[in-house]
């Protein structure tokens, strides 16, 4: 079970308080009606499944209800950082 630091509460909390919401940094196209089916399909369904560093969106559902991001290693389950919405990860697969 993960031990997750909520960047808004600034505390470590048990995984039971959180919901995972999938890959982070997937922006809704600004003009959906201008998207082709393929573009919209990519936005809807296509997600990365990396072995290693992954950025995920989580929500502190049973806490402050804030959404935030986690950089997590999918092999080791190590959480490398958590950061607020609007911020960029400092740990990436390139770094």
């Amino acid at each position: 079970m993960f031990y997750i630091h909520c960047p808004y509460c600034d505390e470590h909390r048990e995984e039971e308080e959180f919901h995972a919401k999938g890959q982070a940094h997937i922006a809704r196209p600004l003009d959906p009606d201008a998207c082709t089916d393929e573009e919209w399909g990519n936005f809807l369904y296509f997600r990365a499944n990396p072995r290693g560093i992954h950025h995920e969106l989580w929500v502190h559902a049973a806490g402050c209800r804030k959404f935030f991001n986690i950089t997590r290693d999918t092999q080791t389950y190590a959480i490398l950082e958590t950061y607020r919405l609007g911020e960029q990860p400092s740990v990436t697969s390139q770094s």
Partner: protein
Amino acid sequence: MTQPNRLNSGGRIDRDQPMQFEFNGRRYSGFQGDTLASAMLANGVDLVGRSFKYGRRRGIVAAGAEEPNAILQLGATEATQVPNVRATQQELFDGLVAQPTSGWPSLNTDALGMVGKVFGSLLPPGFYYKTFMFPRFGWKLYEKYIRKAAGFGRSPRAEDVDQYDHLNQHADVLIVGAGAAGLAAALSAARSGARVILADEQSEMGGSLLHSRDLMGGKPATQWVADTLAELAGRDNVLLLPRSTVNGYHDHNFLTIHERRTDHIADRAPEGMSRQRLHRVRARWVVLATGAHERPLVFANNDLPGCMLASAVSTYLNRYAVAPGNKLVLMTANDYAYRTAFDWQDAGRDVVAIVDSRADVSGHYQEEAKRRGIAVLLGHGVIEARGSKKVTGAVVASLNADGSAVAGASRTLSCDLIASSGGWSPVVHLSAHTGSRPVWNDDVLGFVPGETLQQMKTAGAVKGSYDLVACLRDGAEQGAEAAKLAGFDATPATTPEVDSWPEAKAMALYSIPHTQPNSRAPKQFVDLQNDVTAAAIELATREGFESIEHVKRYTAMGFGTDQGKLGNINGMAIAAKSLGQSIPDTGTTIFRPNYTPVTFGAVVGRHCGELFEPERYTAMHDWHVQHGAEFENVGQWKRPWYYPKAGETMQQALDRECLATRESIGILDASTLGKIDIQGKDAREFIGRIYTNAWAKLAVGKCRYGLMCHEDGMVFDDGVTSCLGENHFLMTTTTGGAAGVLEWLELYHQTEWPELEVFMNTVTDHWATMTIAGPNARKLLAELCDDIDLDKDSFKFMDWRQGTVAGVPARVFRISFTGELSYEINVQANYGLHVWEKLFEHGEKYNLTPYGTESMHILRAEKGFIIAGQDTDGSVHPYDLNHGWAVKEDKPFSFIGKRGMKREDCVREGRKQLVGLKTKDPKVVLPEGAQAVDDPKQPLPMAMLGHVTSSYYSANLGRSIAMGLIKDGLNRNGDTIYYPLSNGQVVEAEICSTIFLDPKGDRQNV
């Protein structure tokens, strides 16, 4: 009662506290301080079980968690039955009742034993797969009997009378194992002031020191244990957990500890005490001091009762004062096990011989044996145990230099106990739980913990360090290091000196060769619990299984409840040898939680019965109970399902409720509908982006129905949202969808549109909601409300008003889920019951009838109103539902779902669409889920058109009604389709409008 194998003195038992117990229907006695296993051995109980596959006689082998044979059923009553308890880990208490779990029809006369004897050669590995899996359905027939014969415990047939609980804990340093290394680690960590938890699976802490005869700082080892425990117990930063097995090491240093709090006291827990507890510990740092298990040596007939681990024999002698036999043959490949022979001799028993596979070894231990007059056969091996019911002899022969073949003539030594030691296997289980692979170490001839990402240190024998002084020092250092890393100022505790002899190099020996090849020699058991032999492993490699993971699955090695604690390394060594490669090349061994079996009681804790899941009640719940409601679970809510009167069937109650509502007036407790309060200057814009329809012009005092879609265009929730103020709305959701919808709104507000000034919160529980529906609804409301103008032209359908109902401030919404004149009265939840009762006081003359969710479903289906999640399933968009009227295409912002429902697949011909269905026979009610076809006589597999989503008998219409999805259904009005059912019946139905009653809406617009 006599205990023939009990020594007259010594041990850590209390001879002044005798205890009676029962095994296999016979009564025996033991002492306080015994385990069930030590007491059975004291009484000379040789036979504890029958083997899994061959039904062979089995006795106790070990003294701890690694025991593969003495797996018993415990419990004096049906309600206190516990299956698969290891007798070696169960403390004796007065009145304990145990049964063997194997042996059928009885332990002494075993049917499978005969099968094993006669057909043993016909039971190769993979036998069950090869035989019973064909035909495929066969396993269901055979399984019951195979399991019965194979010997697994049984679950109790009565409800458990004991309580179990959970405790969440935090620790700076959690130390697993209270042997020499663990105790030293605890001293270092505790003295730093860190919060320390020390957990050990045994009743007494001390590990191997409890049966050690070493002197520590000139005093008995048990004295050092007692002094150390006294210091630890005196510190309030230390929690000592004996009888507590750390069973799981999970991510981010989360560990689960199974504490058996009362299993040693009596058959059931004393009043007011939980029987077992699961500690859920989040530890900053962990020190694993889990020690090592001795490896037995594999030789022919090594499963005969009377073959034991050398260290187990020492444990029974020194800790429990039990000598399980008279004449010992010790088979070893190392010096350490010599101690067992010395212990045995000191207990006044006869050591027939020490058989040592090493040809060229001389040191303190060999000299001591010589001094004691014990025969030592160097370069020899016990190649076979002799005996029919138990060991009566050991066949020994000289071996070649690497122990791979018999080198000389064999002879038989008369004995009744063969103790063997092939060395030690570090208990790396916990370190492997989070994915760290153990690594082979040739110096210690075993796997040691590999690298880990956890905040974890290891100390002592788990690393392959078996010297007591080294274990103590390592423990002290690792304990201090862990405390330091957890932020404390720690120094290693000083540890006592121990006067011990240096040991000569051990030999890498796992299985002892026989004069015959393994395939022809008497069975040489590797895994005693699953009856896996050396020959079976060799056969598996010959059949092409090269990976140890495949060999394990094919032979079932290591798949018992002991997880192969004794057998896995030997099995890998045999596979490696057979494949002509090294052990590390053959693979590693990985373990999963749990280390030992955990009872369901401990897993569940208090989360059972009425505490299994939270239950949510409305403010009127007690009234529903008093009026005989049957309840339905909707999410966590208990909703009245229907209100049967005496003698009524369910259908009769539904008919009465539905008729009364349309004829006069009915009332529904609608409090459970999700309610979300939405405010802010951009609230209106926000709602317009979430819902598919228009919200820009909804005036204060008005309500509107809306559909909510995901980005793929598929409907996932619906409800009515009301405009309470220019920047203030109240959204209702389905009962089960409330939390998900709120999270959905927050997701879009926080991630996509943070610039919108909007705030939302759940107010579901704040309001009690009662829906009055029917022609007399206005009349009834008028009797209780004098400050709202109820006139049909001033308080119109889809309006809401603030006012006072039954003297209580109320919001009244004129909305309808039944198609009747209908008002939803919302009051502060505390007033709910009062208003509800007032309505009944005044409603009696109108035959005010409470109806539940089932009648609600029928009444809404008569009107063709959908239920999101029942008539939709995530593949249905608004146009599929014929709800295009609820989609406003030309809103300036591309609302959620708009682009999705324009995808090629969403606009194609032939999509499944929601239609009404009338069965040809009006009495037949279609089962929900039934699949439609055009031609019921077509060959299988039939082309299916879609399924029934809602289906009821409607008393108002005097016939059955249904809705369902049908391919291209909206263009097929009037067509006949067929529903072939699983019972062979074919139901004929006609496609019609979903609106079965009052298509113009006259009933609600009155």
